């Protein structure tokens, strides 16, 4: 086995700062082309949205299944991505340093997902007469969900801001022109880097991280239950929200890896990103793939074993009849293929291998979300008029699969394009590789001679 030496940056602190800021502050032609391309995709999505809105209106949620799937995909990937840096910071891992910012940067996509949630407010029916986790509380799930979604987005941006504050303060001093103006406006704290400031910074990152974690789990739970489970009569499945969260974790690592690869390959941060990050992240992807299968199977075996008609209908709808194709694609791309690739250490120890796996996982997540949300949205509201009594206990028949129309495809593409567009804009304002974390990491690594060999020594501050 060949060893990967932990990456050591031999540059001085000033060099690191200068270099990273220089890359952040210049916009190459490739970058501009990408911005225009993904901006156009976003535009395409908006057009698709308008077509659908004119065509179908907002009275019935059924035509909006693919739009919802797009939203859920954003929630699963972009909104969950910051968890990666939160959790790794919590366990003080050193390898996370160059990729922490790449994952927090996804916080800006919160803007898009909040915007996408606005039509949902009109679409989502109240919980009266519905079996849901709200037990027909007045005002639910509308206000509760909106509040949670908006709060999460705000929290994501605040987290990014706080985490990037030391870098932004440095960046401001080096910036010129419009960037300088913007930075002057947003860097409201007089950051000097005193010991006290650093202590507050560390503590607030910890608190914000824990809050974000808790809220993210909450939002996953209520979105999964209100926009999927509650819409399908007879679908009583306690593991589904947990599965939703778990596939979110998987996609969070995957989207961070993909973003990191793009930064490495096209962003110019080759000196700061090494195979370490990909190797370690793929070690996380391996158990996450297994857990994906485990959570799915745990739900499946319980439904499969009994012969209750309610459960058999759910299985046939979501997995084995109506939505068989997206289901199989989801299983293949979220578990089978990634697992078979990432189980080999020599693949994990490359940059390309983990990236390919991560890309597959993102596609798998997309198909999985389409399967779940399109299927759930395709079922008509079966509550009796007047909402005085409960909806029926079970789905009477397996619904037909809803295939995407042109506006649906446009909306999905627009969602993905829009997310990348926002991300691209953000990386020119905020350094996508965290300067302070890299510098901090440089402090803790030493190479020492030990008897007849050389060895890596890593500081483990309490």
């Amino acid at each position, binding site marked *: 086995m060949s060893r990967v030496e932990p990456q050591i940056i031999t540059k001085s602190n000033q060099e690191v700062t200068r270099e990273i800021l220089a890359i952040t502050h210049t916009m190459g032609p490739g970058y501009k082309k990408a911005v225009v391309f993904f901006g156009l995709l976003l535009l395409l999505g908006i057009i698709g949205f308008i077509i659908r809105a004119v065509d179908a209106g907002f009275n019935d949620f059924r035509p909006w299944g693919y739009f919802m799937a797009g939203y859920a995909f954003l929630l699963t990937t972009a909104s969950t991505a910051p968890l990666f840096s939160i959790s790794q910071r919590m366990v003080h891992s050193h390898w996370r340093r160059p990729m922490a910012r790449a994952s927090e940067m996804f916080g800006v996509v919160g803007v898009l997902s909040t915007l996408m949630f606005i039509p949902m407010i009109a679409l989502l029916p109240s919980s009266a007469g519905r079996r849901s986790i709200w037990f027909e509380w007045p005002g639910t799930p509308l206000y509760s969900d909106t509040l949670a979604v908006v709060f999460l987005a705000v929290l994501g941006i605040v987290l990014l801001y706080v985490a990037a504050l030391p870098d932004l303060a440095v960046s401001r001093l080096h910036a010129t022109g419009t960037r300088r103006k913007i930075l002057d406006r947003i860097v409201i704290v007089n950051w000097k880097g005193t010991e006290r400031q650093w202590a507050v910074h560390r503590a607030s990152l910890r608190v914000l991280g824990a809050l974000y974690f808790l809220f993210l789990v909450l939002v996953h739970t209520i979105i999964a239950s209100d926009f999927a489970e509650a819409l399908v009569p007879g679908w009583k499945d306690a593991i589904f929200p947990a599965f939703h969260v778990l596939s979110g974790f998987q996609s969070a690592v995957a989207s961070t890896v993909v973003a990191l690869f793009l930064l490495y390959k096209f962003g110019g941060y080759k000196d700061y990103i090494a195979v370490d990050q990909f190797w370690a992240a793929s070690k996380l992807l391996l158990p996450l793939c297994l857990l994906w299968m485990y959570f799915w199977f745990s739900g499946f075996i319980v439904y499969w*074993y*009994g*012969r*209750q008609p*309610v459960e*058999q209908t759910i299985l046939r709808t979501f997995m084995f009849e109506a939505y068989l194709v997206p289901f199989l694609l989801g299983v293949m791309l979220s578990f089978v293929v990634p697992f078979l690739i990432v189980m080999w250490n020599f693949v994990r120890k490359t940059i390309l291998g983990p990236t390919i796996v991560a890309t597959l996982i993102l596609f798998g997540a997309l198909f999985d979300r389409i399967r779940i949300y399109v299927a759930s949205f395709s079922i008509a509201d079966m509550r009796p008029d007047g909402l005085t009594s409960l909806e029926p206990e*079970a789905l009477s028949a397996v619904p037909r699969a809803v295939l995407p129309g042109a506006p649906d495809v446009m909306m999905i593409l627009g969602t993905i394009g829009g997310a990348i567009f926002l991300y691209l804009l953000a990386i020119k304002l905020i350094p996508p590789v965290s300067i302070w974390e890299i510098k901090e990491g440089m402090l803790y690594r030493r190479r020492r001679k030990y008897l007849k060999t050389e060895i890596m020594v890593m500081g483990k501050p309490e």
Partner: protein
Amino acid sequence: MTTQAHHAKWTMVVDSDRCTGCQACVVACQAENNVPINTADIYRQKRVMEWIRIERYWEGIEEAEATGDPSKVKARFLPVLCQHCENAPCEPVCPVFATYHNNEGLNIQVYNRCVGTRFCANNCPYNVRMFNFWEPVWPESLQNQLNPDVTVRSRGIMEKCTYCVQRIRRTELTAKKEGRLPADGEMQPACVQACPTDALVFGDIKDPESKVSRKAANERRYRLLEVQGTEPNLVYLKKVDPHYVEREHNE
């Protein structure tokens, strides 16, 4: 002869409108199938062994309390025995195949094979599987009444209604000896035989002319806990409420 190829599908119909709750079926079953004696102690331990039991429910208690008229309270009787489900939940959970489904629609219990995990009892929604917590004993006076056609079960194993499979086999053999098919109604489990009001009817549902087929086609038909999807081979007929029309008018 054609007896080999023919597989009956044994079914019972329970007409709850006719049931008076007299418990004759319970006693008949007890005697026929060597079910241990239920003493007061056993009742207190909640380990009653009854292959068929009459579940008694009270109806109209709220109404009686509201009006102060105790005559509004009605006793409702529901005879419950093994439903011989097509998709019996008890069967797949048995680790040793001590219970399985045969091609006549019967849910078979193999006493010799049973190891007593009681998983089947958990997974039976109707609670009709009995466990021998104690070694069964009969008083001296009853020892000679035990049915020689039925095994006496030892402690530590499950048992339950068999639709009197010993009688089914005996009837089949008699008919085969005489070179004919068993006639409808020729085969009767003990409970059916003992029922004074004909509330229980037993027969082959595959035979469209049989009494059981005709009764099962009744519009009052329902099956117990249908939402479980167990597909029981036992059909209930709803109670006809004589006060139903009257109440409708009053409201």
